[in-house]
């Protein structure tokens, strides 16, 4: 890995997680406010995470890390959805009904 590649790869890795966070946050806000606009923004954030993944996959990282990043991309997609679902069920089952 060259000096320039190391910087670009590092920035892409940071962007990868940052977009994942943006997706998670926007997904939650869309659910809370029942807003299709924010939901679209969440999808856009996830697409950006996917776009950032492409140069990482094509870049100088070792194959094992590329597989890990690709796997993470899929897991990051599911985390907000499943966490939200889990929290809803948890609250529904534990909190006293009005």
């Amino acid at each position, binding site marked *: 890995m060259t000096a320039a590649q190391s910087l670009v790869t590092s920035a892409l*890795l940071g962007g990868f997680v940052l977009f994942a966070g943006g997706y998670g946050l926007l997904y939650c806000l869309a659910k809370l406010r029942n807003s299709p606009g924010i939901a679209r923004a969440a999808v856009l954030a996830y697409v950006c995470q996917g776009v950032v993944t492409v140069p990482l996959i094509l870049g*100088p990282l070792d194959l094992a890390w590329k597989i890990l990043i690709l796997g*993470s991309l899929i897991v990051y997609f599911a985390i907000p959805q499943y966490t939200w679902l889990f929290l809803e069920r948890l609250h529904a089952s534990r909190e006293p009904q009005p």
Partner: protein
Amino acid sequence: MYRSQHLALKYFTAAMVLFGIMVVAGLLGALYYVQDGLLLNKLDFSVVKTLHIDTMIIWLLMGFIGAVYWFMPVEFQRETEGIRLAEIVFWIFCAAVGVVAAVFIFVQYGPANEASLWLINQGRKYVEAPRWAAIGITAVVLVFIYNVVGTAAKARKITGTMGILMVDLIPLFGLYLIAFPAITNMSVDQYWWWWLVHLWVEATWEILIGCIMALALMQLLGTARRIVETWLYIEVALVLGTGILGLGHHYFWIGTPDYWLGIGGFFSALEPLPLLGMVVHAVYDAGAHRMQTTNKPALFWVMAEAFGNFIGGGVFGFMMTLPQINLFTHGTQWTASHGHFAFWGAYSCGIIAVIYLALQKVRAQERLEGRAWKWSFALLQIGMVGMVGALLVAGIAQAFTERAIGGSTLQAYIQGQSHPWFVQGIGMRVVFGVVFAVGYVALMVDLLTIGKRRGSVSRLSPRMAGDPA
């Protein structure tokens, strides 16, 4: 209030004083980078750095201990067992910290013999406290464990949160024992030393703050215990699952076998996943209550904890955790950037949130509000984000010029230190450090006055304030 909660307030006060010393030492440390020869042979950089790092460890530890003393009697519905001993130990703890700080500042170093290890400095980063003080810290933690376990035993009761906390106290105590042996082989020494530093920070402290946040959320948002505890179990499993072997990212370049490159990189890459889950949980909880709470400052600091942990630990960590990148970034200002942000997000924000919760009760306020906390919150967050941004820029210049291009030679080191990005980054770190320090002053003013100002008259009855019967 319980005596245990009075003791908690003392711990919070001591923690905030040490927080201030940490800020001053940090600012001074930052100035060494922009002013060559500053206080040379009077107060060397290494001493100031030790003060900065050690006060951080101690103020966070005092904050954790204070938080547990605050919540424990409420959890067990009784006074803390052995509270008299705990009160005595608090003063001994404070006196010992004062003596150690004075020795660091005025004695600084000694000859390379056993006496220096016992009386001046053990010499290992983060746990420099001389051996007598390290034994004292061990005694403090033992008394703390006795208080927690003894109270549970006397109450004949155990909650999920307190159960996890009690189990967590075993490694919290056990890992600290690694501070004692003087191992002469550098690789072996580093190997075990990282157990202490990493497993404290990314395992036992994470669980401790998880328990404290669980207790805080029940008080802050009235979230049901079963919900909070179910989430806590999941969080503990995920944090330990990724955090324990994430230890491997410290083993990349210290002379350990190269399988650590794979193990450390893999588990470190997984570490942001539970942090994202925590962000989702924080937004869900805040949204479910429509950000309505009687304690806005505490809610904002809890939110800052979730987001700061994710960005500081997750984003900044993932940028540099894969071995191919870490080859160039480790030990640069880039690492300092990640460290500052992660500690701030994961721990400091949480402790400040608990202090606001405690103050609401102490000052018997039905609703804790005001303007000063917004200023302190904004200044501290802007100061921290500015500092870590500046350190990141400086670290990038270092990693690129000194490591990746220059190959870590002395000449490359000089080039890295004189690179415009490094110089500007280090300068901006001082500027934002001042912003952070102003935020600290605003925080202290607010903590001393919130709920006391004219107009803050909505007092709770003693019963509502949760006084013991």
